[in-house]
């Protein structure tokens, strides 16, 4: 059942201290409606066919695409692009009829692995194919798969992420798949985040089909497109997002982007609010509202969530209770950040820093953990990991840690799938 719940870690704020407080907003997307037909999808599959993909990797990727196509029908569109240092459109965007799908299989069979990796242009070509047939109502998305580093064309991470964001704002989302140990997960993660899609780490080629199937399956189950939380904050409150969601707007009204949500999906957003000074006894507050492109939340009659805080003296502040669930959600976010940070530093050979960031985060959580078993467990885990990160780690392990932490922070399971309410 669709619902929106907002909770605060503490409800009292200090009068002359710019208090910081945390908010946990839990949003559950509506169920799939049996009455309405599912919305169509418009996808581009963009596959790396650089030399390193030769052998099983490319074969399994092709197979995964074919299997995914089997889930589409004439309402949907798909195209296939392959890239190495040249870009080839294997199949221009077409309705997913049975014949088109057979055609795709034939053409894919002739593709083999060759040159270096122009990821950017391969991705843009897929983007063109999708953009030329933007749907009114469905999901328009590029699915980009690679096993290596972008070494031809635009290679700068922040530039590619920026383009992904620009495309997202214009209706085309991007999901990325990284296969093996040598691709750049920071690049793929940031393209997926900015692109309003998801990133999947595929440790072994045999898993390609599961991840592609899962992603395509989810595009077929989207119930709320371009979902956002609209935040209306009291005068002078500064809002930041701690979970890795994009925040736009400023002042009293801001928006948190959540991407496309699937039926029954549950997503947690963690905010940090910094309050202005205020007179003891006065109140201020926050209203949280869920919106999406077609108004699915509104149509479902979802009510706004409202929170209020009261300015109170220091003694009352010191004595106030805490909402443990919010504390846990906050701690999990910071732990996930710390781990992803530690991964980057370990890869860069910065072992001391990698250890430090984990230890420092554990220490800060200890400051409010009290006797809470989950928080204490988290502290112990982070502290345990410091020794692991103090020495060079295998590429696979680093990618695995990144993937798990990134998923945890985004309310996704270990395989990168959306979390759903029962």
């Amino acid at each position, binding site marked *: 059942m669709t619902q929106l719940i907002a909770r605060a870690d503490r409800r009292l704020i200090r009068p002359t201290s710019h208090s910081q407080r945390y908010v946990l907003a839990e949003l559950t997307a509506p169920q799939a409606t049996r009455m309405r037909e599912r919305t169509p999808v418009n996808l581009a599959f963009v596959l790396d066919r650089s030399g390193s993909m030769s052998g099983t990797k490319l074969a399994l990727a092709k197979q995964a695409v074919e299997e995914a196509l089997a889930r589409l029908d004439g309402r949907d569109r798909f195209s296939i692009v392959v890239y190495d240092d040249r870009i080839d459109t294997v199949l221009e965007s077409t309705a997913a009829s049975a014949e088109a799908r057979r055609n795709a299989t034939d053409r894919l069979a002739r593709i083999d692995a060759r040159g270096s990796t122009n990821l950017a242009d391969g991705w843009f070509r897929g983007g063109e194919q999708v953009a030329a047939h933007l749907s009114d109502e469905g999901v328009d998305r590029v699915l980009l798969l690679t096993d290596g580093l972008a070494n031809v064309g635009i290679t700068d991470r922040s530039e590619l992420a920026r383009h992904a964001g*620009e495309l997202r704002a214009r209706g085309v989302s991007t999901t990325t798949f990284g296969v093996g140990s040598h691709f750049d997960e920071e690049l793929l993660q940031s393209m997926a985040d900015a692109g309003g899609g998801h990133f999947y780490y595929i440790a072994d080629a045999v898993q390609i089909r599961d991840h592609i199937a899962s992603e395509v399956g989810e595009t077929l189950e989207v119930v709320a497109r371009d979902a956002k939380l609209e935040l209306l904050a009291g*005068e002078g409150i500064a809002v930041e997002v701690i979970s890795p969601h994009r925040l736009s707007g*400023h002042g009293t009204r801001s928006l948190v982007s959540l991407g496309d949500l699937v039926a029954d999906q549950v997503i947690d957003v963690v905010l940090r609010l910094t309050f202005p000074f205020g007179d003891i006894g006065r109140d201020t507050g926050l209203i949280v509202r869920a919106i999406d492109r077609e108004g699915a939340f509104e149509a479902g009659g979802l009510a706004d969530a409202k929170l209020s805080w009261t300015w109170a003296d220091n003694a009352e502040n010191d004595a106030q209770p805490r909402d443990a669930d919010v504390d846990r959600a906050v701690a999990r976010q910071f732990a996930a950040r710390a781990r992803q940070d530690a991964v980057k530093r370990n890869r860069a050979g910065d072992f001391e820093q990698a250890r430090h960031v984990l230890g420092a985060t554990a220490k*800060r959580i200890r*400051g409010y953990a009290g006797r809470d078993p989950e928080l204490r467990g988290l502290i112990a885990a982070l502290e345990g990991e410091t020794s692991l990160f103090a020495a060079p780690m295998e590429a696979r392990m680093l990618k695995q840690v990144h993937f798990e932490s990134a998923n945890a922070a985004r309310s996704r399971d270990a395989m990168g799938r959306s979390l759903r309410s029962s």
Partner: protein
Amino acid sequence: MTLCYYMCMAYDPEDARYTLTELADLAGVTPRTVRYYLAQGLLPAVGVAGPGAKYADTHLARLRLIKRLQRAHQPLAEIRHRLAQLDDDAIAAITSVTENGPPPASALDYILQVTGQVGPVRGVGPGPLPGHGADPGMDQLTRQMPDQARDQAPRQMPDQSNALVAPTGGPALPSRVARFMEASAPSGPPVMGQRSPSPLMPARNDPPTPPKPPSRIGRSQWDRVTLAPDVELHIRRPLPRPISKRVDRLVEIARELLQEEPS
């Protein structure tokens, strides 16, 4: 924050970036006109009079909207009434004044330009979103465009720009904005295919330059980067790329250092 309750306008001094002359240039009006609108309460006051006064994107967006409404022969009283119904975000959405610059084109237009398949002239793009009016008489809103590469001459943007609509396929405008746009649409057929393209990206092999907000050409400007609720770093851009990367790292470190857990 100076809040004008009556007019529902908010001006946050942190966003101030333009002098009166710069603001007037960007909006295509005279400084005298800007002062007039300030006096009439159509633009939020900035609290500091005289040459030190600085204005924000919200002023620019409102000026553009006022111009557009005037072109549609709306009297000042009516314009004031319309403005009062909209907040900053709504006005920005209508006039597409965002920190990233000029009005965006469609996804396809964007890709074609980035990949160099279409030159820097008006492209044929999809028309306005259904239900929204277009504005055939729109001026050169974007006379001064950001430089994409420092050694390139400033590009002259085409005459028409379709700044009215949100990007096709993008998030729908809030309903009150949509109603506003319908109400202010001049009669006549919507203009199709007239849109000003996004700024070009440099050729692939050039070092990528970040997009700059609509600003004075040839002059550098100061960016403010928030490090923590009460701490800012001021950076004069454009910066040479190696330094820019080090600054990014500095910001990362500083934010981490200043970040606090609940206490």
